[in-house]
């Protein structure tokens, strides 16, 4: 019974933890401009993140080595160092976007200016990192993030023409008013949002935090294979809400209030309040994960002591790195840069960095010295290779598309 409960908890937190500010913004923007015609990208992205997150979790559970230790060991100090600089920069951008997301959501709820919320949000994130037990942190944020189910409820309350939504999705038919380059630009952004590298750093290091061993492999698989696809459904619901309400009205999403507009229209104040709590929890959870990831990547590359399960004094440089990352994120936001714009940048640059993270994981998952009998099977390797091609294509295409479309405008 206890085991079933633990499994259910793991799945629920995976659902709530899947959606972050990147998924929220990108899905709403895409829904409002392209209808349901990019849903296939969410499906591709979810399968990809399932594949690589479970692989990273398996590598760590079996070998005890987290992802960036492996990247350093396999690529050597130079290539891994370049990888670290890129990953850290993108991670910082994502962290900035998430803190901005918390501030925007609290602004919606309170109408206190976001810039007053930013330092509060940053401090709250740090306090949780400093004090709270890893499991409690993960479960609370994940479970409250489930309130984003409000988007799915809103979709049903809106009573859309389901046949029309399906027609937009299969086969994908983008509206004729949009340029194909913009369509592909947002396809890459959506892919980057679904497969953001921090999820893998966090997932593999989290396996160490929770002291996983080879015995926990089945739990790992169930959490990922059930939780992430359900989280992907939430993403699709967000896009569908935008497609039903914002697309016909010709509203292009540029603020959080527009993202939640369909929810307010369908479910009134009560549903809106629940969804806002969900957004705060989801972005707060993701801010924790990205802040931790910034510490994980640096500490693992340099071999420092790391982990939330240790006393802060026993992982001093790890905690110092996270404090510096948080201060940088808050500092960037206080220049009154638009958090939504930061989010859009972060998902595109995530797409650029994808191969740096995913190639070494695939290599090590095939190394019997690390994995023993738990090396990748043929099916996983075939899928992994296919995804490697997709990931490289998306990474190479991202910047040219960004320039060609003027960042999608």
């Amino acid at each position, binding site marked *: 019974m206890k085991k079933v409960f633990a499994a259910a908890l793991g799945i629920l937190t995976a659902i709530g933890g899947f959606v972050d500010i990147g998924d929220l913004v990108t899905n709403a923007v895409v829904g409002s401009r392209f209808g349901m015609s990019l849903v296939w990208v969410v499906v591709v992205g979810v399968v990809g993140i399932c594949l690589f997150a479970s692989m990273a979790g398996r590598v760590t559970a079996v*070998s*005890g*080595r987290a992802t960036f*230790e492996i990247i*350093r*060991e396999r690529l*050597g*100090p*130079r290539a*891994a*160092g370049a990888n670290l600089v890129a990953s850290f920069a993108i991670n910082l951008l994502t962290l900035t976007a998430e803190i901005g997301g918390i501030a925007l959501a609290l602004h919606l709820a309170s109408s206190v200016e976001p810039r007053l919320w930013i330092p509060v949000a940053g401090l709250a994130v740090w306090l949780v990192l*400093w*004090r*709270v*037990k*890893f499991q409690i942190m993960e479960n609370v944020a994940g479970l409250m993030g489930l309130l984003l189910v409000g988007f799915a409820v809103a979709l049903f309350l809106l009573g859309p023409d389901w046949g029309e939504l399906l027609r937009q999705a299969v086969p994908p038919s983008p509206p004729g008013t949009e340029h194909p380059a913009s369509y592909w630009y947002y396809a890459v952004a959506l892919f980057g949002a679904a497969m953001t590298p921090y999820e893998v750093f966090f997932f593999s290091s989290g396996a160490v935090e929770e002291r996983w061993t080879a015995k926990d492999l089945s739990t790992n698989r169930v959490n990922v294979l059930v939780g992430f696809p359900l989280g992907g459904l939430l993403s699709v619901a967000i896009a569908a809400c935008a497609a039903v309400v914002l697309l016909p009205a010709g509203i292009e999403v540029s603020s959080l209030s527009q993202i939640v507009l369909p929810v307010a229209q369908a479910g009134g104040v009560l549903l809106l309040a629940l969804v806002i709590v969900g957004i705060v929890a989801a972005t707060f959870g993701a801010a924790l994960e990205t802040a931790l990831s910034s510490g994980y990547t640096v*500490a*693992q*590359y*340099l*071999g*420092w*002591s*790391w982990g*939330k*399960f*240790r*006393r*802060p*004094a*026993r992982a*001093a*440089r790890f*905690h*110092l790195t996270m404090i510096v990352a948080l201060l940088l994120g808050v500092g960037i936001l206080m220049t009154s840069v638009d958090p939504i714009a930061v989010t859009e940048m972060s998902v595109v640059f995530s797409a650029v960095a994808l191969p740096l993270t995913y190639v070494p994981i695939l290599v090590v998952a095939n190394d019997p*010295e*690390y994995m023993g009998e738990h090396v990748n099977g043929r099916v996983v390797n075939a899928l992994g290779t296919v995804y490697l091609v997709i990931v490289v294509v998306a990474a190479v295409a991202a910047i040219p598309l960004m320039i060609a479309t003027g960042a999608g405008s």
Partner: protein
Amino acid sequence: MTHGPRIVDARLHLLSRQVLDVDGEPVSTVDDLELRGPDGSEARAGQEAHVAAILVGPALVTRLFGGRAPTSRMPRIAWDDVGHLGTAVELAVSSDGLDADWVEHWVRERLVERIPGGRHDPEGDR
């Protein structure tokens, strides 16, 4: 598993591996190795040599950008302190007594321990 002498490739199995102390706490990465000749002098190409120490910290800079720092300036972990070689290099001593880990000790004592809650055990009840 094979028994008897085990062949270890220094590049493949030592460089850039994680170093753990006797309690499993990460200490550093193997940034470079100090090789010594049979008589304890500096190792020369073509002669027999053994690993005398693991170099950490500034050794990473010379690995990244080339060049040589004076060996006396390199924080080192004596090879005699190494207990076991697996997917990580496991030491037989605690990190608290290692001079090579001085940066961690400095950050711990000067900064992190001074922030309230710095010694709080997150896994404990309170």
